[in-house]
């Protein structure tokens, strides 16, 4: 465990150092992403001004909260574990070889080895929203942090499960993109706008509901049962995704594409 924490910390430092090699690109991507997220909240503000009250049971402040959680959870996942969304590429080109040759947990080694610059913008944007709109509300901060952490891990697990299909299908990049798009769409709109069947999906196969909407419920009315059930569900989903990855890894067939590590 201690060894893998050291590897995780080392990858984080190297990823950040690698990103900072191109300062202008880093700053523009991170800032650009935060700006892009702001436009969505602006449109939501206009919608609430026109309609007033609540949309599907969500007030504007509720929407701000789920946006903050979703943005930071997405950012955390893609800052720390960006390779989950890149797994198909690693499988198809044989880049997993380098990770399999090293004496540590393949999953930790693979997931931590990459970062996405723009995700820093997503990560900090969630905190900025919280600072502006929920500064004096400790309960909101508690459930925001709970949501950002469990959501970050869950988004990683969703990416991992979808891209692991590449071991079986050859190329599951489209499935990976689709899973991530569903996750984002399920995260940034009130969950009651979706049909019951879709909501079932949001709390099972693509558990964006657990990542974002449960923290809002807990903020609105704390329930220890719901908090524990959500944590248990998230842990079970992550364990299943990890198990699926290791089963798929047995089918890995490598490759001889010329590879450099960025």
């Amino acid at each position, binding site marked *: 465990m201690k*060894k893998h924490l050291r*590897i995780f910390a080392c990858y984080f430092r190297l990823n950040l150092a690698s990103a900072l090699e191109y300062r202008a690109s880093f700053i523009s991507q991170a800032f650009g992403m935060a700006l892009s997220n702001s436009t969505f909240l602006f449109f939501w503000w206009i919608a609430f001004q026109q309609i007033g009250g609540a949309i599907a049971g969500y007030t504007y402040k509720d929407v701000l909260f789920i946006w903050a959680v979703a943005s930071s959870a997405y950012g955390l996942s893609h800052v720390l574990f960006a390779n989950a969304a890149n797994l198909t590429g690693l499988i198809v080109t044989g880049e997993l070889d380098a990770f*399999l040759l*090293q004496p540590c947990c393949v999953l930790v080694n693979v997931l931590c080895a990459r970062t996405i610059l723009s995700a820093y913008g997503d990560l900090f944007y969630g905190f900025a929203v919280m600072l502006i709109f929920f500064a004096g509300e400790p309960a909101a901060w508690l459930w925001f942090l709970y949501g950002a952490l469990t959501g970050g891990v869950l988004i990683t697990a969703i990416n991992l499960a979808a891209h692991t299909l590449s071991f079986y299908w050859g190329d599951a990049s489209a499935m990976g993109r689709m899973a991530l798009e569903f996750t984002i769409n399920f995260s940034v709109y009130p969950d009651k706008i979706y049909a019951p069947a879709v909501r079932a999906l949001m709390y099972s196969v693509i558990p964006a509901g657990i990542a974002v909407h449960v923290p809002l419920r807990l903020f609105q009315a704390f329930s220890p049962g719901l908090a524990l059930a959500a944590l248990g569900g998230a842990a079970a989903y992550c364990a299943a995704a990890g198990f699926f990855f290791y089963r798929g890894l047995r089918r890995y*067939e*490598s490759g001889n594409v*010329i590879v450099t*590590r*960025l």
Partner: protein
Amino acid sequence: MQAINARNLTKTYRTRVKSEGLGASFRALAKPEYKEVEAVKQVDLSVEQGEILAFIGPNGAGKSTFIKMLCGILHPSGGAVSVLGLSPVNERRKLALRIGTVFGQKSQLWLHLPPLDSFTLLAAIYEIGEAERKRRVDELSELFALGDFLRTPVRKLSLGQRVRCEVAASLLHEPELLFLDEPTIGLDVVVKQAIRELILRRNRERGTTVFLTSHDPADIEHLCQRAVVIDHGALVLDSPVDKLKSDNPGTSMENIIAAIFQQETGRPLEAASDDTPVEEAPV
């Protein structure tokens, strides 16, 4: 003691077969056809500790597949293999601590960062303490003359400098067995010779076993004690390099290997093309 012991080692891939054209693509979508390809066919091979072995063959002969099974990257379809007394499939992490690899086509250095940063990461992965890491980096830096460019981003290094860093990185955890897959590919004559001398020195001073694949006959002549030739997944030659030289006085190693290859396979070595579609993504 044996460093590698492979018995009847076999690797079979199932690969999709499709005729040319869009129509065939649609037919393959509705009714895909597959064929089995034996990339490695019941290979028996033993390598003693401290030995330097050349593993050669044309493109697509099965060299990389064989090495990847020895390293634990690929699971064999049949046979048995033991590397340093360990099973590569079941004891991959234990084995990885004791072997080093340089795959000419795959870098373990971070392109945008100096080699020193990659060495720090490798030290964390191989559980090397900070003081020990510094000692080993200093030692490798002196041996490979890395001092000038240890702090230069890898993208700004020449190919020769990068390969020296790659080999140094593979030795950081002081492996007992080194797999070198075309380590001198694309290098000029002077740098090739320098790399060879460094490998030889490591072998003499530490007794490191070296398993080398290369298309360069000079690598075999200057480095190796034994040459093994593989073609279409099967061994066609296993002989001491000295014996090859003494049996063919005055002939270059390139011509010796080419003549034996033609004798054994009925084809010239340079014409032995990659007609075996190995290592495809699963279907």
